């Protein structure tokens, strides 16, 4: 890949990404949302985050033989449900996954 084509592609990705973020930020700040709409936006954020978690955990499909990451993520979530601090959640997820793979 030439430097020029890299530069163009990165410029597209970076400016496009900024435009997506700015579009949301300025819309959210300009329009004073009703309580109903604000609740909907917060709910949309939660829905997106959960979808990111699920697809990030199982992005190789459920039929893969490697379930180590899914087990690690679930272990981290269990720690979070037990109100463990975030650093513990991180460590649990890493250790469980790495140990399962080292096995």
């Amino acid at each position, binding site marked *: *890949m030439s430097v020029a*084509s*890299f530069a163009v*592609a*990165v410029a*597209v*990705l*970076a400016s*496009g*990404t*900024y435009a*997506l*973020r*700015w*579009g*949301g*930020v*300025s819309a*959210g*700040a*300009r329009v004073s*949302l009703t309580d109903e709409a604000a609740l909907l936006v*917060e*709910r*949309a*954020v*939660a*829905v*997106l*985050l*959960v*979808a*990111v*978690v*699920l*697809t*990030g*955990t199982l*992005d190789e499909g*459920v039929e893969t033989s490697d379930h*180590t*990451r899914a087990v*690690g993520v679930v272990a*981290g*979530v269990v*720690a*979070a*449900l037990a109100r463990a*601090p*975030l650093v513990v*959640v991180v460590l*649990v*997820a*890493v250790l*469980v*996954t*790495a*140990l399962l*793979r*080292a096995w």
Partner: protein
Amino acid sequence: MARDVLPICVTVALIGVSYGVTATAAGFPAWQVVALAVTVLGASSELLFVGLVAVGAAPLVAAAAGLLVNVRNSAYGMAVGPLLRSGPQRLFGAHLVNDETAALATAQPTPSAGGRVFWVCGVGIAIAWPLGAIVGAQLGQVVPDPRTWGLDAVFPAVIAALVLPALCDRPTLVAALTGGLVALLAVPHVPHGLAPVLALGGLAAARLVRASR
């Protein structure tokens, strides 16, 4: 606040290391790895961009795929927009909108607390991500496979931990589970990164729950 922000930034830096290693292994020079990290500041879109180019995709096609991954940041932006003062602050703050800052900021009890934590976490990530990428690019092929560290499990676990409190609200839980199912079913059939956006269809399910009460 530091209790939550610090592990997030450390995690982001570690994922940045694995991104740097991956990109270097794919043939990207260090300056390109860092340029992507600083200007895009969106982990999954950069990993996808690097991965696609590595398997021979045209750079512009890879950039378009990366943009699809980042569409969800518009919704995050709408949620944190009211927390940012207009002017230069908002212009710069927009660049810091991502999964982690949105999850953390919306989980705070008050808007002012949300704004504070957004900035601390956002600036922390803006430093940690490129820093990790630089380290990863230097390590290059010295480290065989970042997956052996179990790092790929950290990001989903952190986001899950941050979003858990929001799921105590029943309609939100129903919407999230429905949307999550939609996203998982869609993954094999839509361009990479679009699946989470389709999950927004789950919001319709929340409406049903409310109506039934």
